[in-house]
């Protein structure tokens, strides 16, 4: 594989463009709402009308407006060569003939179909960097990725940039870890790169476990080559020849597409030995997680890849010094790697001018909850939460009002409606007792009970605790019980004091980030919605009714 080959592939791919392109989303959300049968129906409809040469059916990834799935986008070439896309939502397999009829007759949209304005507020206020090709590229065909520029940045890195220059670019871009903690990516790369030469590893953390978060899944299902390319560039920068992608087992589609992508990239010589005729070798293997949230914690993830029980160990030593099998290991999240090819293509300065002083670039959020439009959202860092919730998401549905926005999953917190003007950045969210997290964003309305929310997340942390350290293992159980009692209106003021003391212990004394952040949902709801707790407290009155025997004896 050489640059010429990439260009040749690109040309071959674009010459194959059909006059009419019908794209159907085959990411998990739309698949679950029936896009597989819709594709078959569309194939039949195209065949029945004999439109095989004019219409190209493409299986693409996420088109973002998940709540309207299955989504279909129709691109018709007009006489002047521009393509005007039409977007349909909630398309039923039975409506496939209507779509084909409308494109055959050259009508802009079919009446019977629910069409969506592709320039509507949901799309217009987003900025695509990581998701630039999501919903356009075909995840199962490497040619389609290459045609959109995949692996060009890797070529440039291998031929025009030294490892140190790559690290310098990443550092200058100001990119910070998208897994949630926001550690400067360039600094992390530099640390691993500075370790003495020898065996090093690159690991991609795709163990996205937060309830309500589906950004990484969408990226992997929609544009897997972007992540592989980011990892390869990282490997070149730090001197690694082996990479692992640790994907949670609950993402079978992402796993199969990654597997396909890795095999295709190997066949094209874009992974493996002597990539782009350089001396750079890079092999990527998949490792499938077995359903433990804690394995998203980097030290537990390392144990899991090594084939051990997935429990964290105290840092230092950090994985950058001693990771997989004791070798220096670079661990970044999916979205972090997905940013890398763009940074090299457009330049660090271009990237650094997006976002804010402290938080550069864009952030992908999985917007869900009590909101009109839910789905995948990418915005520049620093936009106010209100922009995402009200303009992009369209605010709450009729008859309800936004009460709070939960960010960062079980490690995050709830931001009340009156603080929606907070800019979305690592530090500002942290100041509110929440975190950026990996990008889950759940909107809550007046019917949502904040104590219940805290109890739900505590239940999650309790179930997901690995059991290694006492504060998290036993503390989460007790916090869950206290929250349960508060919710049922059987707790006293003393119980609330006990709960807050436990929050203090678990937050500061737990071994890893899972335990340390487990109290966050409680602390943040206590901070902004304390009355919901206090209004339920009763005078201490002894055992709950459940302790008294109910049977006659």
């Amino acid at each position, binding site marked *: 594989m050489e640059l010429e080959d990439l260009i040749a592939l690109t040309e071959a791919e674009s010459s194959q463009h059909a006059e009419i392109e019908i794209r159907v989303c085959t990411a998990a959300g739309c698949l679950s709402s029936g896009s597989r049968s819709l594709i078959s129906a569309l194939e039949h409809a195209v065949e029945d009308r004999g439109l095989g040469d004019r219409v190209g059916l493409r299986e693409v990834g996420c088109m973002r407006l998940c709540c309207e799935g299955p989504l279909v986008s129709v691109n018709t070439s007009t006489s002047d060569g521009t393509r005007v896309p039409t977007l349909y939502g909630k398309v039923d397999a039975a409506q496939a003939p209507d779509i084909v009829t409308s494109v055959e007759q050259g009508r802009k949209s079919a009446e019977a179909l629910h069409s969506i304005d592709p320039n509507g507020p949901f799309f217009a206020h987003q900025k695509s960097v990581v998701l630039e090709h999501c919903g356009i590229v075909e995840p199962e065909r490497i040619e389609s990725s290459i045609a959109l520029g995949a692996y060009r940045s890797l070529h440039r890195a291998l031929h025009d940039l030294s490892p140190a220059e790559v690290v310098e670019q990443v550092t200058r871009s100001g990119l910070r870890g998208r897994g949630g903690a926001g550690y400067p990516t360039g600094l992390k790369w530099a640390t691993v790169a500075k370790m003495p030469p020898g065996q090093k590893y690159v690991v991609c953390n795709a163990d996205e476990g937060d309830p309500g978060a589906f950004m990484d899944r969408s990226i992997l299902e929609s544009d897997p080559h972007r992540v592989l390319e980011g990892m390869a560039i990282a490997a070149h920068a730090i001197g690694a020849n082996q990479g692992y992608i640790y994907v949670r087992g609950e993402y079978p589609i992402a796993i199969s597409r990654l597997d396909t992508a890795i095999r295709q990239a190997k066949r094209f010589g874009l992974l493996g030995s002597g990539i782009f005729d350089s001396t750079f070798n890079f092999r990527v293997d998949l490792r499938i997680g077995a359903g*433990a949230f804690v394995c998203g914690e980097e030290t537990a993830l390392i144990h899991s890849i090594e084939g051990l029980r997935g429990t964290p160990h105290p840092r230092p030593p950090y994985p950058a010094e001693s990771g997989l099998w004791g070798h220096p290991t670079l661990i970044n999240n999916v979205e972090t790697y997905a940013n890398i090819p763009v940074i090299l293509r457009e330049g660090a300065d271009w990237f650094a001018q997006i976002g804010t002083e402290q938080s550069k670039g864009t952030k992908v959020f999985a917007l869900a909850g009590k909101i009109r439009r839910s789905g995948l959202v990418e915005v520049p860092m620093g936009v106010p939460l209100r922009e995402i919730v009200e303009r992009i998401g369209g605010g709450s549905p009729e008859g309800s009002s936004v009460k709070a926005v939960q960010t960062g999953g079980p490690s995050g917190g709830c931001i009340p409606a009156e603080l929606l003007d907070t800019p979305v950045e690592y530090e500002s969210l942290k100041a509110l007792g929440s975190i950026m997290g990996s990008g889950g964003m759940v909107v809550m309305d007046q019917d949502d009970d904040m104590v219940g929310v805290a109890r739900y997340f505590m239940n999650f942390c309790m179930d*997901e605790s690995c*059991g290694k*350290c*006492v*504060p998290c293992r*036993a503390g*989460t159980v*007790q916090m869950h019980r206290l929250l349960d009692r508060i919710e049922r209106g059987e707790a006293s003021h003393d119980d609330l004091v006990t709960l807050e*003391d436990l929050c203090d212990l678990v937050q500061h004394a737990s071994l890893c980030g899972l335990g340390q952040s487990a109290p966050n949902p409680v602390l943040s709801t206590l901070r902004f919605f304390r009355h919901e707790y206090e209004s339920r407290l009763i005078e201490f009155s002894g055992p709950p009714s459940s302790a008294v025997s109910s049977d006659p004896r």
Partner: protein
Amino acid sequence: MAVKTLSVDGQLISAREGQTLLEAAREAGISIPTLCHLDGLNAVGACRLCLVEANGRLLPSCLTPVAEEMDVQTQTDRLQRYRKQIVELLFAERNHVCSVCVANGNCELQSLAMRLGVDHLRYEPQEPECEVDLSHERYGLDHNRCVLCTRCVRVCDEIEGAHTWDVAGRGTHCRVITDLHQPWGDASTCTSCGKCVMACPTGALFHRGSSVSENVHDRETLHALILAREEKQWLV
């Protein structure tokens, strides 16, 4: 061997490079409570009782190497508060009935409670259903009394080399297991050496036939064995 000078609870002490804070403090006669730590086994930093405030940060002293001019506090109110909570959490987690335990009067959890002034439990007892494994001819395992310190796992792996013990499950459902979760008596890797029983801090692992307060852990023998390995004293 470089010497590091650090301040522990306001007292200047010297320590050898490579020592942990726990070792250095103990050599200087400063006592830090521990539960999962056992001399000669790899530290895991799991019980969190030995947390200290080093340069303002909370760190497990069993895993933190000494550093020059470190300022360490081992007995602040906050640390004492945390330690007390941890011991109470442990008592509430399983079914510890000291008065009828084989290890009564010879138990590190019991001693810790006394030392830290735990006179009752703030937390509701979890009262889990726990099994008792009496399939081994010489030893017994009572999960009701296990604190998941994993000393048995480590002593079996690192000192005996059998790796019979491990942990299964997660969170509060964790249980120490033998082999692939077979009854202990059926665990083919077990050499019946008894090191796990010597290492156990509570009455979870015990000699069969011992009654209340009768079980002896015989930690001296274990330390002698570990020391012999470390010092290569094979010829007596």
